[in-house]
C-alpha cells in the first residue's frame, strides 16, 4: 500500500485502485465544475483536465468551491491549489481558454475516460454536447440541464441522453435573476453528476 492510499481506505472496497487509473475531463470550473472536481479527487480519480477562461468573482462564492482570498485569480489556478490540498499527487492539467467550435478539437484529450459538461450557458452546453457526441462518441459524457432556484431535491434526476450521454438536472429551472442559484442545490446536482461519472468509470452504469 502506497503512502497516499491511507487517505482512501474508507472508499468502498476495490474502488480506489480503479479510479486512480482514470482520467476525467471537466469543461467549466464554476458551480458544477469546481464541485465535481472536488468530489472526483476525494474519491481518488487519478488524473484531471479542467478548462475554464474565467476569474473568481465575489458573486461566485455562494456556490463555487473557492475562497474570498482567491477572488481575482483564474478559476483553474485557484481550483488547482484547492485540489492539491486534497491530493498533492493528483495528475492535473489546467487550460485557461474558452472552448469554442474552433479549438474544442485540440482541447479535449481523446484519451479521457469520461467527460463532464459543467458550462453555464445553454448554447455552450449544446455546442459541447454536439461536438462530443459526434466526434468522441465512445467517451461517456455527463451533461447537466436545470439546477437553478429552490425546487425540491427530488425534482433533480439522472437519465440517459442521446448516444453516450447522461443528463443530470431537473431539465427545467434555468439560471436567471428570478431563480438565482443556491449552494445546496448546485452542490447536490454536481454531486449527482460526479457520482454518475464514478459509477460509469467503475462499470456500474452503462
Amino acid at each position, binding site marked *: 500500500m502506497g503512502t497516499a492510499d491511507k487517505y482512501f481506505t474508507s472508499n468502498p472496497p476495490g474502488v480506489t485502485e480503479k479510479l486512480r487509473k482514470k482520467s476525467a475531463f471537466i469543461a*467549466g470550473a*464554476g*458551480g*458544477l*465544475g469546481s464541485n465535481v472536481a472536488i468530489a472526483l479527487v476525494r474519491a481518488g480519480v487519478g488524473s484531471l483536465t479542467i478548462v475554464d477562461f474565467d476569474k473568481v468573482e465575489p458573486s461566485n462564492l455562494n456556490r463555487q468551491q473557492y475562497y474570498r482570498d482567491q477572488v481575482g485569480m483564474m478559476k483553474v489556478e485557484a481550483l488547482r491549489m484547492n485540489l492539491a490540498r486534497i491530493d498533492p499527487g493528483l495528475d492535473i492539467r489546467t487550460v485557461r481558454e474558452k472552448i469554442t467550435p474552433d479549438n474544442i478539437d485540440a482541447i479535449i484529450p481523446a484519451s479521457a475516460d469520461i467527460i463532464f459538461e*459543467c*458550462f*453555464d*450557458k*445553454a*448554447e455552450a*452546453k*449544446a*455546442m459541447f*454536447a*454536439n461536438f462530443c*457526441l*459526434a466526434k468522441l*462518441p465512445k467517451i461517456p459524457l455527463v*451533461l*447537466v*440541464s*436545470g*439546477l*437553478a432556484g429552490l425546487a425540491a431535491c427530488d425534482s433533480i434526476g439522472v437519465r440517459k*441522453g*442521446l*448516444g453516450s*450521454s447522461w*443528463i443530470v*438536472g431537473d*431539465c*427545467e*429551472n*434555468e*439560471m*436567471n435573476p428570478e*431563480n438565482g*442559484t443556491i449552494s445546496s442545490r448546485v452542490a447536490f446536482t454536481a454531486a449527482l453528476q460526479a457520482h454518475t461519472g464514478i459509477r460509469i468509470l467503475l462499470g456500474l452504469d452503462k
Partner: protein
Amino acid sequence: MEIEVDAMKIIINGKAKNVSAKTLEDLLLKCKYEPDKVMASINGGIVERKKYARTILAEGDKVEVFCFVGGG
C-alpha cells in the same frame, strides 16, 4: 382551414406528430425549439448542429431532441 400539402408523420421524442417540415432545422423551429440550445438525433444517429438545415426529413423519422437550460 389550410391544408399543409407536404405534412408528414414524424415521431418526436416518442410522440407522433404531423408536421410540414423539410429539414431538421424547420422541424425544430416549428416545434418552438431554439436550434442552438439542443442536441438532436434522427433514427438514433446524432446530427451535428451545422447540419440541421441540410438534413432532410423523411416520413416516419424518429427524432429525439433535448433542449438545454442554462445554469452551472
